């Protein structure tokens, strides 16, 4: 079975599941808009008091919010449901069936429970970014590099989640941990340059939400140095390798339900 066929089949299955519940699409869209307004509201209060903050105007900080909403949408559509299912499978022992499939287990679990309906959030986030990009008057190069950094950031989130889920093979009950990390990622709705010292370091390198939301916004403003951008890409590749190693090492720990 070729890889492409498998990926297409898994994607088709998720899409078909979503289409069965077409009515909830409207509900999700309404929720997405309300959610975006809720996320952006504190920003308007802050910038009502200070026209610029650490070199960011309201419009520019809005781009960060846009990338934050895209990241959260991608997390809820593509990352979290897939990887959270693994925790359950490990607990119940049904993870055996995943391992028996003639397909790389990491690839399979990354796709088997996708919830495409949540991608509506990404559309709303994209709309916010587009609005901000027009206000900033970003050119083609800026847009392309922002898109590249955003994709790097999303793979980084996926790697981060893979590492968390890998720990399920050791500690079994880790879904609460993913909530804790989400609370930490919440800091990413603000430009990471607003934080100082240890907090900024953590948000850039340890729980690198700054890379996911702030760096694409900086690229959009044309203020990201090429070296910093490259650094961000390297970090996301490193996280990807870390995730792969963590996954393979944890699989070795899996004592199946039957053997």
């Amino acid at each position, binding site marked *: 079975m070729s890889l492409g066929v498998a990926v297409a089949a898994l994607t088709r299955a998720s899409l078909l599941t979503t289409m069965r519940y077409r009515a909830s699409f409207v509900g999700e869209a309404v929720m997405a808009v*309300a959610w975006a307004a809720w996320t952006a509201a504190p920003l308007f209060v802050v910038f009502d008091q*200070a026209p610029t903050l650490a070199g960011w105007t309201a419009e520019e900080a809005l781009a960060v919010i846009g990338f934050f909403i895209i990241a959260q949408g991608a997390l809820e559509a593509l990352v979290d449901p897939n990887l959270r299912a693994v925790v359950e499978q490990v607990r119940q022992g049904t993870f055996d069936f995943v391992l028996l499939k003639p397909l790389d287990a990491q690839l399979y679990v990354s796709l088997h429970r996708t919830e495409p309906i949540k991608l509506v959030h990404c559309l709303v986030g994209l709309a916010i970014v587009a609005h901000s990009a027009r206000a900033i008057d970003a050119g083609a190069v800026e847009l392309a590099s922002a898109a590249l950094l955003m994709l790097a950031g999303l793979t980084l989130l996926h790697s981060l989640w893979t590492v968390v889920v890998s720990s399920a093979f050791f500690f079994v009950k880790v879904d609460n941990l993913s909530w804790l990390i989400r609370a930490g990622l919440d800091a990413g709705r603000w430009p990471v340059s607003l934080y100082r010292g240890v907090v900024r370091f953590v948000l850039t390198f340890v729980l690198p939400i700054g890379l996911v939301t702030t760096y694409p916004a900086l690229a959009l403003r044309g203020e990201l140095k090429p070296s910093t951008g490259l650094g961000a890409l390297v970090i996301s590749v490193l996280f990807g390798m870390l995730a792969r190693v963590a996954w393979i090492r944890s699989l070795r720990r899996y004592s199946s339900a039957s053997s």
Partner: protein
Amino acid sequence: MFRAFPTLLRIGLAEAVAYRAELVIWVLTATAPLISMFIWDRVAEEGPLGGWGQGEMARYFLLTLIVRHITSSWVVWELNENIRTGGLSPMLLRPMHPLVFFVAQNLAAMPLRAVILAPLIAGVMWWRPELMWTPEPWTVALGLLSAALAWVIAFTVQVIFGSLAFFSQQSLGLFNVWFGLWSLGSGYLFPLELAPDWLRQGLLWLPFRATLATPVELLAGLVDGPSALRLVLAQLVWVGVFLGIAALTWSRGVRRHEAVGA
């Protein structure tokens, strides 16, 4: 009931200790005020805003964090779960009101919450020592009373949304909507004093600030005598309103309750 209450508290504390790892995670999940604190600290860097310097910002958000945890409960999830699964039925058979049990359960977790929060509080105080202030005894007394009232309101609201599970499958979704509005309107994410005028005026008539901003502002010494009293009176009104609604939804709901064994 009054003889059973100390025992219920002991059970609640034992439960909290048994689930301490989860409690740590839940407490740490509700630390959004710290993020807001860093942002508003930056806003006040260039100079105080309407009398709010970096010290006031840190004080406000530290107290927000503390009051948030003093007033927090999880009875909405407990009720939802127990109504759906029928776990409420045996509780209804006991010779005391099921809500008394939940009150004890939520109050008993408080010492452990304080232990978990202590390092964070110490960290903030070390980071911004200028947040320290000498509070007047009467604002502290009124602030503590106000925090207790805020706890009652927050708990009652959760009971209302929890007992909506008697009628609807969507009660948790409705509660999430409430929580979203609450976090914007209660002073949780930004100080209401610094919000645009129209928003602040509108929020005076809504219940959200009574569950958080009122005790925080009183304890921080940010409001003066007459308006402090007015705010606490408003809290009393909301306590009455929500207790009335809760009594109604609860008694109607229990009559409808048709879970296994009920």
